[in-house]
């Protein structure tokens, strides 16, 4: 059946799903335990103020539910009697995905310094380049005109606030 985008399609064919599932289960339990520990640091309040429902009660209930569900995860194929899907593997991530994530983070970080408009230009210049777009005569006009049009519509017409950036005073921009 076609993998449905946004619903967790998994591809590949070489590793038993149970091993991956056990790994996922262990990670979930580790994170849940860490968050449970965090709930122990919540400020304690008098029972009367908490009305018998202390602030850590509900998060702990949810964490416990997550742990129970995670423990079921490796046994899910057995419970659902799915034999066909027993061998599935998550394909390794290509370097491009890591680089894309790093670039997006770098652009977001740069926004504090150079402001929203300049960071949009950066994104429209660097992301196509990273993804292999080599037609400079298309990339450069796109990187200048598209953010410019977006700024005109959103900042100019719709009055959506744009981050001026820390360098704005130095550049004489308000």
């Amino acid at each position, binding site marked *: *059946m076609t993998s449905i985008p946004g619903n*967790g399609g998994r591809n590949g064919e070489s590793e038993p799903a149970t091993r991956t599932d056990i790994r996922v289960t262990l990670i979930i339990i580790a994170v849940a335990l860490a968050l449970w520990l965090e709930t122990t640091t919540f400020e304690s309040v008098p029972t009367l103020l908490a009305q*018998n429902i202390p602030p850590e009660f509900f998060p702990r209930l*949810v964490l416990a539910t997550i742990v129970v569900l995670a423990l079921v995860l490796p046994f899910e194929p057995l*419970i659902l009697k799915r034999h066909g899907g027993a061998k599935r593997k998550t394909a390794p991530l290509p370097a491009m995905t890591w680089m894309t994530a790093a670039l997006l983070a770098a652009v977001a970080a740069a926004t504090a310094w150079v402001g929203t408009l300049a960071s949009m230009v950066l994104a429209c210049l660097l992301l196509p380049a990273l993804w292999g777009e080599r037609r400079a005569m298309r990339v450069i006009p796109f990187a200048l005109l598209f953010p410019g049009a977006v700024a005109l519509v959103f900042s100019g017409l719709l009055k959506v*606030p744009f981050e001026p950036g820390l360098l704005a005073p130095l550049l004489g921009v308000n």
Partner: protein
Amino acid sequence: MDPILHGLMLVAQPVNLALILAGVLVGVVVGALPGLSSPMAVALLLPFTVTLDPVPAISMLAALYCAGTFGGSITAILINAPGAPPAVATAFDGYPMAKKGEAGRALGMAAVASVIGGVFSLLVFLLATPWLAEVALSFRPPEYFALAVFALSMLATVSGRSPVRNLIAGAVGVLIGTAGIHLTTGVQRFTFGVPELADGVHFVPVLIGLFAMSELLSQSRTLNVLYERITSVVIRLPSRDDFRKVRGTILRSSVIGTFIGILPAEGSTVAAIIGYNEAKRWSKHKGEFGHGAIEGVAGPEAANNAATGGAMVPTLALGIPGSSTTALILAALIMHGFRPGPYLVQQTPEFIYAIFGAMLVANFLFLGIGLAGAKVFSRITMIPPTFLWPAVFVFSMIGAYSFSGSLFDVWVMLAAGIGGFVMNRHGFGPAPLVMGLILGAMVEERLSQSMIMFDNDWLRFFDSPIVVVFFVLTVVGLAWPALAPRFRRRDTPSEPAP
């Protein structure tokens, strides 16, 4: 009758009609573009609707929802790449029809079946919403708690390969919703010393991250995918013979789609797949399925669009989203100061009818736009991803930042995007997480109120027959994925064609 007329008059204002048209255009475009989806478009538009009045804002989003569901069928038929998940089943027979030179016939049928399904569900919406709201007026916190738990349990049955993963993703969403100051005691929870987290995690950046950024990262893996395009398309309205062949299928799928839409958490994708299966099961020409059966296009298209109207019923009448997109519309309602539920229906019925009117107008608009512009919309897929996705990133950044004018929200969006991508890679979809995020606050609030009412005695939940019914349904919902294959084995096998 007054509130209905009042609501329709609100929609008929030129500004509102223009925004509905804009919503339809955006919806068809994002629906047609593989990777972009109506939840993503609604998430991106959310922060910009804050400046609008509630009626035009919600009307535009509702119109986008209807049109986005239809838009996916264009690329499903023409390039075998469903623009949106609800169109997955449409490709099973739509693309084989296109390859046989019947793309126009398939597109015409998809548009007409979508409109019939959509209008049918809107009539049900018109009748069922006030009735359901009337019933819900008698609900107290324990009943609401049980209802919300039931809605979360339905995540086990939403599409996706792993019910347990869906439930975990839903629980993670609920957990994220607990961050910030606890309303009863004022205690900070999961703030990790970050002052911005004291207000909790804002919905909008998380939604944009989950739907737009995680998809952008997914796209970075498929930059070299090329689609085979069917170029010569002359759209044809279904002939009388076609209609005779599919009228039963459309009616059946409209009923199925509306019913599935009304079920909490279930959306258009599930409706479309069941609509396809039922079309095949009842067909006299089962052998044609997978090779270009016109019923294989009509069935899922009527069902997935019928689910849109159905999904609005629990969203507005109970405050329980019927699908991931209606979860976002629910977030928009909350942003505009509404509390979706029976009191919204009782106190501002004209608002509910305005949404009905907007969706009705949207259905007829996308019929015209879809029929006239399918060829143009199919060309949208020729926009290189190297330009499309940077543009999505730009909109995401502005959307996340403008919501509260804080760069922290841009980081939240990125974190949600990367987290959503990693989770999606391991089978934890964004839709259940969003449902958990939206329902989490209600679950905790109603649980706390119930426990105070019951003086901490859990057993008193079972004093209410409505609570018991919801708890039984919850157990059935959780067990259904394990039980369903056993039922299917006894029934006629009806798997969709590959």
